[in-house]
């Protein structure tokens, strides 16, 4: 397992699309360092030949008939939009 001090906060925060202040970075580095040091104990476990569990009960693909059903009305879907216009979500320009 990598060492807890491997946690590069700038890189990870960028992956998570999360702006952190310097104060948050310093605090999280210390606190998550503790947590990562704690989880090092998982290294003691012999996991050779063990299959990973993603769900406690096997999840299989579920097929549904391709039948159209009424969806959420546009008006309801847009009710919580931060900015909207003509049945659309408005965002700043993304393509020059």
């Amino acid at each position, binding site marked *: 397992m990598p060492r807890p001090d491997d946690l590069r906060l700038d890189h990870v925060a960028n992956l998570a699309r*999360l702006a952190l202040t310097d104060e948050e970075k310093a605090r999280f580095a210390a606190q998550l360092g503790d947590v990562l040091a704690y989880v090092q104990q998982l290294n003691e*476990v012999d996991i050779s030949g063990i299959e*990973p569990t*993603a769900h*406690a*009960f096997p999840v299989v693909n579920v097929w549904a008939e391709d039948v159209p059903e009424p969806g959420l009305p546009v008006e309801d879907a847009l009710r*919580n939009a*931060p*900015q909207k216009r003509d049945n659309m979500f408005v965002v700043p320009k*993304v393509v020059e």
Partner: protein
Amino acid sequence: MSEELCYSTISELSGRLARGDLSAVELMQAVIARTRKVDGRVGAFNSFDEEDALGQARASDERRAKARASGADGRGRPLEGIPVGIKDVVAVAGQPLTASSRMLENYVSPYDATVARKLKEAGAICWGRLNLDEFAMGSSTENSAFRTTSNPWDLERVPGGSSGGSAAAVAAGEAVAALGSDTGGSIRQPAALCNVVGLKPTYGRVSRYGLIAFASSLDQIGPFARSVEDAASVLGAIAGHDPRDSTSVRMDVPDYAGGMAALAKSGRRWRLGIAKEYFGEGLDPEVGAAVQAAVDEYRGLGCEIREVSLPHTRYAIGAYYIIATAECSSNLARYDGVRYGRRSKDATDALDIYFKSRAEGFGPEVKRRIILGTYVLSSGYYDAYYLRAQKVRTLIRRDFLDAFAQVDAILTPTSPTPAFRKGEKAADPLAMYLSDIYTIGVNLAGLPGMSIPCGFTRGGLPIGLQAIGQPFRETELLAIAGAYEKRTDWRTRRPRL
């Protein structure tokens, strides 16, 4: 009088409602009056809509009058007219849905969660929005962006979490029952700390459609109630397969309340397991003694008590905080400030919307978990953390299934300590995580687990007994919990408020 109503069980109230000596409106008025009286001190609710609740109660009374006119006796609808509080992560159409986060401060649900729809179909009143740790991440409800909920038994202490509002509301008589969600103990731990019954069903038993997702392979919705039988009634109403949640199982929903009563009558001798791993370092001596006394009570009932071993217990928290944060970092990627939720006013371009809206919308614990989860899933670390944790999860699950070859259920403390003081663990995330040590394994293994009241400390703080059952055997679990409950009067005690 009105306090008596607020501390009655569903079974008592449904009897009175059926006989016609109480109306749903009168009951709702009593619950509203109680809430107005005590919630300023308890802080269980993020919000409640009195007019809406009274409207639902009036509709219930009308349904009952109509049914009576056509000769129906109302039996088989135990929740008709019963106010059930809703944790503020479960969608109820037209009501706020905040997850106790600035991110969703102004969000209003456009649709019902499946459990909300089912409660309404059963005649229950969806009552208010109950506080929680932001996005259900925490064990004290102190991570709420809006308010701190107090433990009704000691207002200086936390109610537990993340479903602290749900537990406190039932304990304070502000709801007859409530829904919570449990990802690592978020129903059972606050139930224990507030002297109420809390049930986390088997993973897949209850639809998660309309539940704000935290860690999808662990999350499950379940009831808080004043008695084991009441928990069975609520579970019966909300359980079942749902085409909108592909992880909900295609399995018939048994009559839980009827089934547990039948088992109680049968006089079956349960085989109950005790695991030494749940009675070690960190367990408060008074909690340990109360749980031991509960085990003795079971022995006195003729149950067979067996030692079982769950050797990987000590790795459960480590595995959990890798798996749960990984899933949370993925689930919370949806809060991008584009379609709903908070959008930063300072953002200059599309990418900036993500960074700034998330920085403004999420509180510290949510940010920490997103960072940790993103890290353990990131390139170069995935195998060392995430994959390893998933393999340890296999071993934890195997421990439980091996134990269930010998016993019907396992008895443990729910929480290693009674309710702690506000602020005590707020600055130390790891210490807070360790308070879930006895509940987390159940989620990793997908099992049903309950907390039931089993005593008080000398200082007057509630203690909970956890019973862990076999997958999809909630009826047996309820019967086992009910057998103890019948021999004690812990659940009838009320906090002085």
